[in-house]
């Protein structure tokens, strides 16, 4: 029966184009697919916590397809950025997120759009999950006027409502995140702030200052360390006297989470958000994850780790493959469905690339704008005394 339908849908696809085939597949879903399943997820290591997130996660078909779509979009977008960088259409810094998609997707699945999030420079994935389109992200990377920051920010400085970038200075975003959490507490809207940093930033002094104040004032801050095992070219063993990043908050409770499993990340984030919303103060999560690319596009990423290691993670722990296999093995979706989603995403990324490579650069008149907010126009000195430029808010 299933193969019959598959044959019919393929035939219809070829004859009439995609739409008819899709309708066949959709009607198939109600009858044949499992609408919801429960999966075992890895137990989290706990620090100063009596109990942790559940060890089973429920996943509906819709959720699964949505998480897949999100992760695959981020993956394809990052690979496209890689391509554009090699073609020199993207310049400067470009820190890619492929391999870590489960973190961004899992976190977003557990928080509300009205919650807040701030991260460091490996930010494209979060920029997407926080609501910015692939088009606006790629156009910002290529420095065009259609970019989310009108081409003035670049890879590390993209913003959206309740998303505070994109921050270039390692570790500086952590006190900022604690401050956003302070605002959440002050304004009493039951919102939390997710404050991300890497294993490299975990050794910055200002983090410990933030931990202290967040704990002292019980700020609703979820500190999340994305431990991808390397701070640029330095492995965690060579940088940290203690690599138990989830314990580094000392008096702050912590969880160590499998960051390659989107369900694990989601459950842990849900647990953490509940903790903060209950007024218990900050909490730390360490997501154990991996980046396929080097630190940035100027780092091949193989001088400090082996190709075998990278390949092993790709084949055994890829977040997207893991989710797909889970859903297929529980008959929650079909191979064709995933293929279709892949095709859709590829198309979306291609269209975004088209825009990002054809949109014009920002006009020179924009050069001095946005120095001050809500300010009368002012004059800005150019490169010589005769160059008097105009700046508006």
């Amino acid at each position, binding site marked *: 029966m299933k193969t019959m339908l598959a044959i019919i849908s393929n035939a219809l696809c070829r004859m009439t184009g995609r739409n008819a085939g899709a309708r066949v597949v959709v009607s198939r879903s109600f009858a044949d697919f499992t609408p919801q399943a429960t999966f075992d997820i890895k137990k989290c290591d706990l620090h100063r916590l009596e109990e942790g997130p559940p060890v089973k996660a429920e996943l509906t078909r819709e959720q699964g397809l949505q998480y897949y779509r999100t992760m695959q979009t981020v993956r394809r977008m990052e690979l496209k950025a890689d391509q554009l960088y090699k073609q020199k259409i993207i310049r400067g810094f470009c820190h890619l997120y492929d391999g870590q998609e489960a973190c961004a997707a899992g976190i977003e699945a557990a928080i509300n759009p009205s919650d807040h999030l701030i991260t460091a420079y490996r930010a494209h994935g979060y920029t997407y999950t926080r609501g910015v389109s692939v088009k606006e992200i790629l156009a910002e990377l290529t420095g065009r006027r259609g970019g989310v920051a009108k081409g003035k920010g670049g890879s590390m400085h993209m913003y959206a409502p309740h998303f505070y970038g994109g921050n270039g200075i390692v570790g500086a975003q952590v006190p900022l995140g604690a401050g956003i959490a302070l605002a959440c507490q002050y*304004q009493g809207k039951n919102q939390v702030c997710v404050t991300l940093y890497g294993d490299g930033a975990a050794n910055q002094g*200002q983090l410990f200052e933030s931990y202290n104040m967040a704990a002292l004032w019980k700020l609703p801050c979820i500190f999340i360390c994305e431990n991808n095992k390397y701070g640029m070219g330095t492995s965690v063993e060579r940088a940290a006297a203690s690599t138990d990043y989830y314990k580094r908050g000392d008096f702050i409770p912590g969880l160590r989470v499998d960051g390659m499993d989107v369900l694990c990340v989601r459950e842990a984030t849900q647990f953490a958000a509940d903790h903060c919303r209950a007024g218990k103060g900050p909490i730390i999560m360490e997501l154990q994850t991996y980046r396929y690319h080097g630190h940035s596009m100027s780092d091949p990423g193989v001088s400090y780790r082996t190709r075998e290691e990278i390949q092993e993670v790709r084949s055994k722990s890829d977040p997207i493959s893991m989710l797909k296999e889970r859903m297929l093995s529980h008959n929650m979706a079909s191979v064709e469905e995933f293929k279709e989603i892949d095709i859709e995403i590829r198309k979306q990324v291609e269209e975004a690339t088209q825009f990002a490579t054809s949109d014009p650069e920002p006009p020179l008149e924009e050069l001095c704008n946005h120095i001050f907010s809500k300010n009368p126009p002012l004059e800005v000195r150019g490169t010589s005394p005769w160059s008097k430029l105009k700046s508006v808010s």
Partner: protein
Amino acid sequence: MAASLRCFLRSGKNTVSALQLRDFHRSAPAAVQMTVRDALNQAMDEELERDERVFLLGEEVAQYDGAYKVSRGLWKKYGDKRIIDTPISEMGFTGIAVGAAMAGLRPICEFMTFNFSMQAIDQIINSAAKTYYMSAGLQSVPIVFRGPNGASAGVAAQHSQCFAAWYGHCPGLKVVSPWNSEDAKGLLKSAIRDENPVVVLENELLYGVPFEMSEEAQSKDFTIPIGKAKIERQGNSITLVAHSRYVGHCLDAAAVLAKEGIECEVINLRTIRPMDVESIETSVMKTNHLVTVEGGWPQFGIGAEICARIMEGPAFNYLDSPVTRVTGVDIPMPYAKILEDHSLPQVKDIIFSVKKTLNI
């Protein structure tokens, strides 16, 4: 004592008449005497009351009433939520203040002195000042950084640096430097109401000095525009430009020079960035001579910037002599009183420089 007496006498003309019996037709405006400390306190009190998003954080600002008592009484009135004592963690609490500003609050971040702001300068410049530009207007940072700047008395090298030039260098920041109580209140209120990061460079030696506050200045809505200098004294012989404490020194020097027939025009910069160069130019085109006075070091300082700007503008052709800069001595601040006194501009140095500039 002598300084405050001089200030009283200088600004006392209205006060004396206020002390006399009032006559409806001829009474002077009801001015009062207020110290800079109280003016700053009043400014913060009024803004805290006016807008519930405003809050103050810093070391000892709450229960200690402020290291220099500038925030006296505020914690008692507004409580823990609005007046927050921080641990000694400048980088951390400055970042927290900037993050709070990004998320919709209007923090006043106090540095016990600006010397300690150096530990947090990354948050001030990279997280606060540059963000509106980097985000092309998506993310504003309405924050005030305030505290005592420059030399105090006997606090030696690590506690005496003037940061006007450092902060004045950076686009995206506004930097103000009040002299008297009206300046202090008006500029701080403007800073708090401004949507942008503003650095308010106060002066510890001025905190206890009383100045006249006009009736207008006593109003809850009294603000002074950021970016506009004030002519404190009119004159035709020479222009003196200063900020903060040295405005007082210039006025003292002007009083002495007036006896010799030299009438100085004294300009109180009030704002370091954006600097009101036009006011200086207009004055120089009248007097043909310019002396700048500052407490900071000479290299790459406020005076240096004024010199460059004057040269690039119309006033250059009106100069009868090169601009003279009177600055702090180019050394770390020593401790011994005699050495400290000779590390900073004194009134006699200003008088000397004026006469040299006028070739008298």
